[in-house]
């Protein structure tokens, strides 16, 4: 699409399209055009559409299990597909695999670095990936023999130039997606450690990522310190959509179960819902009384509930459609740093700077 060139620009010696100021003007025009196009379709608010839906009743959600064993702040956790095992990582370098039903620790690994900010369970349940201040993502196969030294079988897969903030296996044990403080995300082949694709576009540290539910195709979302949430095409490495409405770092992004939307949690004390097909923010989950950042968000199975772990030690439960808070959960004695709903939606687990993890149902 060509933009008309103003008379002043036409008199310059250099090709009008190529000077820095012209490109800047063009980018400003495009940004305005983008906002206008999005605004044209903003005919109603989500909560207005949801007015006729029944409100949610009282919620009885309690801590059902407390996982104790980390010696320092829990930074990340992930569920195994078997819906009972959990992997968690902490500031002291320990990565622990738990059986959440019995609260027994099944495996423990000590990483050579502190601040293990990312950990993930492999789809097969046979391995875990983790990393942090070592700038790497390493994969540990889980041995059935509890006495075996897991650290011996460690495989270094990803290499970034700054800390690893998040990692996730794709549909198989063979590929890992990582995000880093170096401002990029990357897709790696686990076996060879080869970089398959890199994703550039964030202007600052990337703090979180989430893969689209498998039915919806090859995309993923990332959130960063540049206040942007980006949607990426995994095959081409292209950023296909970008959202910049948060007022501070985006700590967590999570796809809506249908794959058509995603939620984000930010240091600006709000969680927001973005619809991918409307290409805009469609809801903000906030209250004047909530002034601390949201560190981690996840949806319940149907997408009706959004759980947010906050830096004020609480977990707020939001009605996604109506935009209201339905419950506030107390229990942790320090910041909630990680929160994930179990694969079958029967419970969710929160990890905290108070050294513990809690399973709620």
């Amino acid at each position, binding site marked *: 699409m060509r933009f008309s060139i103003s008379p002043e620009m036409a008199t310059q010696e250099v090709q009008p399209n190529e000077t*820095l100021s012209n490109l800047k003007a063009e980018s400003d025009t*495009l940004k305005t055009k983008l906002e206008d*196009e999005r605004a044209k379709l903003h005919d109603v608010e*989500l909560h207005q559409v949801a007015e006729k839906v029944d409100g949610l009743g009282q919620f*009885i959600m309690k801590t059902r299990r407390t996982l104790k064993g980390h010696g320092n702040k829990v930074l990340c956790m992930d569920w195994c597909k078997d819906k009972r095992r959990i992997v968690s990582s902490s500031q002291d370098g320990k990565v622990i695999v738990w059986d959440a039903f019995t609260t027994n620790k099944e495996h423990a690994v000590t990483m050579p670095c502190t601040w293990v900010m990312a950990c993930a369970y492999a789809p097969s349940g046979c391995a875990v990936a983790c990393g942090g201040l070592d700038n790497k993502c390493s994969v540990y196969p889980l041995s059935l023999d509890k006495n075996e030294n897991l650290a011996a079988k460690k495989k270094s897969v990803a290499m970034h130039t700054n800390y690893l903030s998040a990692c996730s296996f794709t549909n198989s044990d063979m590929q890992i997606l990582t995000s880093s403080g170096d401002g990029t995300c990357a897709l790696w082949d686990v076996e060879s450690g080869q970089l398959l694709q890199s994703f550039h576009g964030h202007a600052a540290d990337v703090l979180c990522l989430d893969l689209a539910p498998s039915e919806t195709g090859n995309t993923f979302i990332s959130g960063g310190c540049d206040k942007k949430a980006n949607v990426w095409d995994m095959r081409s490495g292209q950023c296909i*959509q970008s959202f910049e409405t948060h007022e501070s770092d985006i700590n967590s992004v999570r796809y809506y179960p249908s794959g058509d939307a995603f939620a984000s949690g930010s240091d600006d004390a709000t969680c927001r819902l973005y619809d991918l097909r*409307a290409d*805009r923010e469609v809801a903000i989950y906030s209250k004047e009384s909530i002034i601390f950042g949201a560190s981690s968000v996840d949806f319940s199975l*149907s997408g009706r509930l959004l759980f947010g772990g906050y830096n004020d030690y609480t977990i707020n439960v939001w009605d996604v459609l109506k935009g209201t808070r339905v419950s506030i959960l107390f229990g942790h004695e320090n910041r909630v740093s990680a929160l994930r709903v179990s694969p079958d939606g029967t419970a969710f687990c929160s990890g905290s700077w108070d050294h513990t993890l809690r399973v709620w*149902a």
Partner: protein
Amino acid sequence: MTSNSNLSNMRRLVDQLKLEASVERIKVSQAAAELQQYCLQNAAKDALLVGVPTGSNPFREPRSCNLFQGQQNIRIMQRKTYIGTQKND
């Protein structure tokens, strides 16, 4: 050199914005209706939303005491060792 990289950065930004501007969009009313429909269709399966019949949520079950389980494991191990030695005889 710096001006060249600034230029190529700006060019990349303009191309990226053109790509984002060309995305096909639907109305918020339609998008919202579909999000709502998904929620309502799947509400019955959402254990955290509606709760499940007692007995089918493993986390709501009281778990057996860890100590007891530990004792059980020790007894099973002892029995296996005994059987092992018997066979060797």
